[in-house]
């Protein structure tokens, strides 16, 4: 038995395409899922005490940790009343041998930029981060670190950032030597004479999201097998990707299809249905 398993593993390594194809032809995937199944999604919120908000997301073996840190900084000249949300996805050699050490690679820059544009003002209003117009705003640095890469980084990082913001414990505020700990964005006021931001007594403000985002990713292998939530092996075989994000009111917020394959109307129906189901799943997290 064990030799058979060994043989199967060698087969998988030598000819991954044929290995997967044999599963696909029986409407199964190598990890036992059906085509439309997502991997088990587990989340933990607020696992990092030193961060102002944090979350851990596991999508099968893909593990993402998101930590948010709030700092006071100056607003842009063009947008004096708005703060910043800076997502930064880190794909290090630690999470997969696909990624080289050094400056951020193409994929991590692409994911960071895509998330940045997804969490725009219609999702996360930036005027709630205002302290004093033209002088001081909050800047939320969201570091999204991948600990284990097994495909579908887009979904995992969006869910992670979403939960870290939702959890919204903005509990540290550091200014010079004063160190405060709060549950929410601390209440601060701007002192005009000294030109500094000071913490004042009273309840802080929570950050709010206008809508939640529910992402799902699909890929097309050999033009006919539509796989939901692809793992790394499946991503390598796929030639077409379909990424769709729904919001709380069942609208589509973002759709991104890339690659050569043609998605048939039947497959499009499956994609929309699955994305809607996924929304219900994620709402329960």
């Amino acid at each position, binding site marked *: 038995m064990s030799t058979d398993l060994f043989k199967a593993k060698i087969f998988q390594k030598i000819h991954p395409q044929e290995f997967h194809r044999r599963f696909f032809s029986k409407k199964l995937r190598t990890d036992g899922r059906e085509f439309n199944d997502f991997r088990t999604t587990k989340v933990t919120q607020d696992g990092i005490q030193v961060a102002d908000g944090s979350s851990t997301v596991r999508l099968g073996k893909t593990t993402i940790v998101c930590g948010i840190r709030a700092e006071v900084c100056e607003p842009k000249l063009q947008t004096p009343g708005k703060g910043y949300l800076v997502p930064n996805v880190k794909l290090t050699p630690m999470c997969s041998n696909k990624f080289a050490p050094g400056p951020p690679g*193409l994929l991590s820059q*692409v994911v960071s*930029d895509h998330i940045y544009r997804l969490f725009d003002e219609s999702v996360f209003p930036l005027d709630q981060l205002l302290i004093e117009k033209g002088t001081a705003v909050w800047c939320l640095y969201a570091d999204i670190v991948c600990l284990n890469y097994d495909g579908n980084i887009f979904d995992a990082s969006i869910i992670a950032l979403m939960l870290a913001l939702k959890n919204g414990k903005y509990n540290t505020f550091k200014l010079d030597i004063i160190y405060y700990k709060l549950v929410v964005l601390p209440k601060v006021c701007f002192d005009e004479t000294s030109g500094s931001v000071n913490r004042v007594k009273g309840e802080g403000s929570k950050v709010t999201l206008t809508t939640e985002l529910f992402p799902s990713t699909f890929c097309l292998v050999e033009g006919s097998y539509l796989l939901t939530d692809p793992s790394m092996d499946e991503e390598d075989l796929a030639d077409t990707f379909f990424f769709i994000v729904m919001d709380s009111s069942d609208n*589509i917020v973002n759709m991104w299809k890339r690659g050569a394959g043609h998605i048939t109307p039947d497959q499009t129906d499956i994609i929309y249905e699955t994305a809607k189901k996924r929304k219900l799943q994620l709402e329960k997290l």
Partner: protein
Amino acid sequence: MENEYKRKDRENTKTREIKISNGLLVQADGSSQYSVGNTTILCGVYGPIEAKPFEEELDRANVEIEFRPRTGTTNTGDRWMEFALKSIFESEILVYMHPRTRFKLNFQPISDDGSLESAAINSGCIALINAGVPLSTMICATTVIVTTNGDILVDPTAEELLNNAVSSHTIAFSKTNIDSSPVYINSKGKFTREKYQECESVSREACKKILKFLESTLESN
């Protein structure tokens, strides 16, 4: 009360004037400058050239995209664009005909007045034809937006995109499969499935017209 936007200078389904000039770059194997209205982008193609040793692939050619911003240094937005364009041109170029080589496409936006992404796709396609690279099909893209009052506008200007768009859709079709599903979709904003499908058919009709125009200019050259 928000004013309902109505386009005055042209019909909703009409693109701005398209201009193409091929072979502007002498050093490149092929090049094309594509402008639609005030949006202009220049694309230069090199290839097939020697692959970088660590990127060489045994059975296929590598496609490398460089997207330079008009001003300043490359940022993550340009990287995103490179990633998207790569997915399109990898499927368009017959990469398996040129094993262990590389194709390099350089994009240089000259002015951006909306619909830059679709202009980049179109300019890349024409530059590849100009370079004589074997392609599987011709690809053509348009950008459409949905305004606050539900109108669908083809080829929006930067101002329309900024002030009037509820959602914007960049959709690319291949010539051989223009009536089936698109090759590339990038939709952003807030929309329903029905609205998207409307946009898709509007953009398909616009793409057919652009393709016709591109073909006639390529034949006359």
